[in-house]
């Protein structure tokens, strides 16, 4: 009898959790993400869980729900209670999903609370060193004939970045999808495709060893460790600025106090030299945003990808 009573009190307490935000958190918090173990999402979620657990005194547990390019997890989080006990580690693909999928059971912007961006990172345009010396040469070749362009898969940010490059420069590129950046890098090294768009983690080491050449970086400034690789914007497509990101989100309607607590704690943890260094080693720059900035950035990206998908004639799913 005593036990039942205690349990009831405990259950009641947890129900009241959101109301008494000052007490947050009083029970373990789940960080959901939509990718397999070992991807950037999983690694970063686990890295972030540590300082959160330490600072807030409750375990932050990482729970992968992989499937459908992250949509299985987003669907789950969008329909969870906004009580602060279900969070999501979001990736740049969240914006792509918002544009690419027609029958989602959630709205990529409206159904979420955006807490903070964690990191951002650009993509690299890479070729074999014996083929093209500059991005201008590659684009010129693209305008003449067909450049075979490899990416991590249909509808990935890498794919859409390549399509946007083609659209902005007028080059013609035949897209060949692979499974993940690793597949595209292998195909490039083996000569099956002429160019790939890939995240830095998969090409930086090969560029250093001279097996690949990086022609350009997709955002508006050079990457810190490769200062001599120009931006696409400065060379062939003025104004070009594409990047991906990782961020912390929750269901829409998360109480503001909880959002603030999570935002401040996460940003505080991220800005320690230790975590910053580890993330940089993964090719990710720490770049927090306020909840409002983060929200606006995602809304902005959904709009951009909608345009690219229409102009490249990619089928929506």
């Amino acid at each position, binding site marked *: 009898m005593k036990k039942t009573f205690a349990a009831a009190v405990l259950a009641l307490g947890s129900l009241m959790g959101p109301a008494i935000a000052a007490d947050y958190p009083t029970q373990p918090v789940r960080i959901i993400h939509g990718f*397999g*173990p*070992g*991807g950037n999402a*999983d*690694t970063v979620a*686990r*890295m972030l869980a*540590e300082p959160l657990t330490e600072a807030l005194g409750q375990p932050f547990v990482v*729970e*992968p*729900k*992989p*499937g*459908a*390019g992250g*949509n*299985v997890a987003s*669907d789950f989080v969008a329909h969870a209670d906004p009580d602060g006990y279900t969070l999501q580690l979001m990736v740049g693909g969240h914006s792509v999903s918002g544009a*690419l999928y027609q029958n989602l*059971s959630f709205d990529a912007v409206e159904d979420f609370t955006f807490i903070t961006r964690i990191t951002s990172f650009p993509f690299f345009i890479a070729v074999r060193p014996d083929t093209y010396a500059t991005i201008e040469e590659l684009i010129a070749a693209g305008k003449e004939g067909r450049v*075979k362009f490899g990416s991590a*898969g*249909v*509808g990935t940010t890498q794919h859409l970045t390549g399509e946007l490059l083609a659209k902005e420069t007028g080059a013609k590129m*035949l897209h*060949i*999808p692979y*499974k993940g950046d*690793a*597949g595209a*890098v*292998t*195909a490039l*090294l*083996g*000569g*099956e495709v002429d160019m790939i768009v890939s995240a830095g*983690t998969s090409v*930086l*080491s*090969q560029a*250093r*060893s001279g*097996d690949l050449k990086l022609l350009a970086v997709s955002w508006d400034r050079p990457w810190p460790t490769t200062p001599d690789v120009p931006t696409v914007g400065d060379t062939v497509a003025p104004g070009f600025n594409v990047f991906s990101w990782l961020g912390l989100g929750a269901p829409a309607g998360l109480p503001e106090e909880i959002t603030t607590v999570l935002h401040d704690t996460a940003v505080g943890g991220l800005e320690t030299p230790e975590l910053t260094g*580890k993330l940089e*080693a*993964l090719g990710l720059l720490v770049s927090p945003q306020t909840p409002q900035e983060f929200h606006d950035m995602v809304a902005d990206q959904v709009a951009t990808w909608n345009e690219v998908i229409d102009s490249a004639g*990619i*089928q929506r*799913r």
Partner: protein
Amino acid sequence: MTLFDGLSLGFQTALAWHNLLYALIGVLLGQAVGVLPGVGAMTAISLLLPITFYLDPTQSMIMLAGIYYGSQYGGSIASILLSLPGTPSSVVTCFEGHPMAKAGRAGQALMLAALASLFGSIVGVAILVLGAIPLAHLALKFGAAEYFSLIVMGMIGASVVANGAMHRAIAMLAFGILLGMIGTDINTGQYRYVVIPELADGISLVALAIGLFGVAEIMCTPGQSRGGPTTALGRGWRQFLPERAMLGRLLPPATRGAGLGSAFGTLPGTGAAIASFVAYALEKRLSSEPGSFGKGREEGLVAPESANNAAAITGFIPTLTLGIPGDAVMALMLGALIINGIVPGPAVMTDHPTLFWGVIASFVVGNVLLLLINIPLIRLWVRLLSIPYWLLFPSILAFVSVGVYSFRNSVIDVWTALAFGILGAILKRADYPLPPILLGFILGPMLEEYLRRAMLLNDGDITVFFTRPLSAVFMAGSLLLLVLPLFGVLRRRIRGARKPA
């Protein structure tokens, strides 16, 4: 640095007591998660990844690698004893290993599997040491056309896996290919037969394998009489050691398996599962009594075990030399290296010789550890079989459910495993072979992927499979595989025709 210097540096590193400790932790943990159906190396490694931030990179790699091949062996234990394949590559281990266990030879099967694993790993390490760089460059020559032709050859070669009527095997292969069609179309991103979002990435391979082989086995068994495993446990572990004559007989299959495993392991993305299927098929082809396969034939256990371990080790070739992960587990380990500030790629060998050679030497050391640990454990494992069914089976089903669920944190996968368990039991009773379903399920989507990519790259020119030299060789091989049995039939006909005369 010469090869010898490298190896001696490697063994010095791997045998240092703290590294040895991490190898031990790795293989123990790996074996534990491997035995639990569904909980693979992937889960264990990703859980441990944050810990590796605090370890030195050599130690973390040794430990992670230990988990990786430890789980391979753990998978074999569950396959042999209970027909529960924890990993796709250990499905093949069920084919002969489980019948051996049913015939009361579980201890022997476990010992053979451990010895074959060790053998395969040593061959894999030798190939890794001698030929990593040339092999990695050869692997890069494999384009879409070559992969397609290789898989065609593998599929034809492995279609003899089934016992009994050919048309039933082909029907099951086709069924497997159809199951593999469910999911996202790789070239357009369109969904195919995705009735619920959880199916967007297809049916879970682990759920399918555990359902078809493990759950179905459980469902079929209570109908049979118990009369099975009565392994005598009196004479200590030596009773499980194979006799010298048997060792001699099993050396050629183990060698062939290791060779095949090494070849498939080097190609990024094909992997251990196909290697073990092909190794099994080859042994059956070469055997003078193919009819005895499926009833506990040692060759059919040893060759695939040796193959999947060799493949697991040569799988490190693209990872270490090109910085391209061969599979998801490798990608995880690359991540661990990067976080520790080491850039994977050709430079690892020269920039971090202690790490490179230490990890390689630890493959051998770890596998020896695995064997030593298991010699006393085999008795314990075998005893599992003496647990009465009413206690054993419900607990296995509970473990299976937890394991399958934890793989993707998805309840759908649990239902999938159960559904395929029921289907598997029905098919088994109706005498339809189950292995071709899995073969079709694994190879079908790969076949489609490479075919369509080759067509996209070559403007739909189908002759490309015959004009690219490597691809042409595989196509010729496939043709030979198809024609050879016909010759056999013809010869028998001719002989038959002569007899009455």
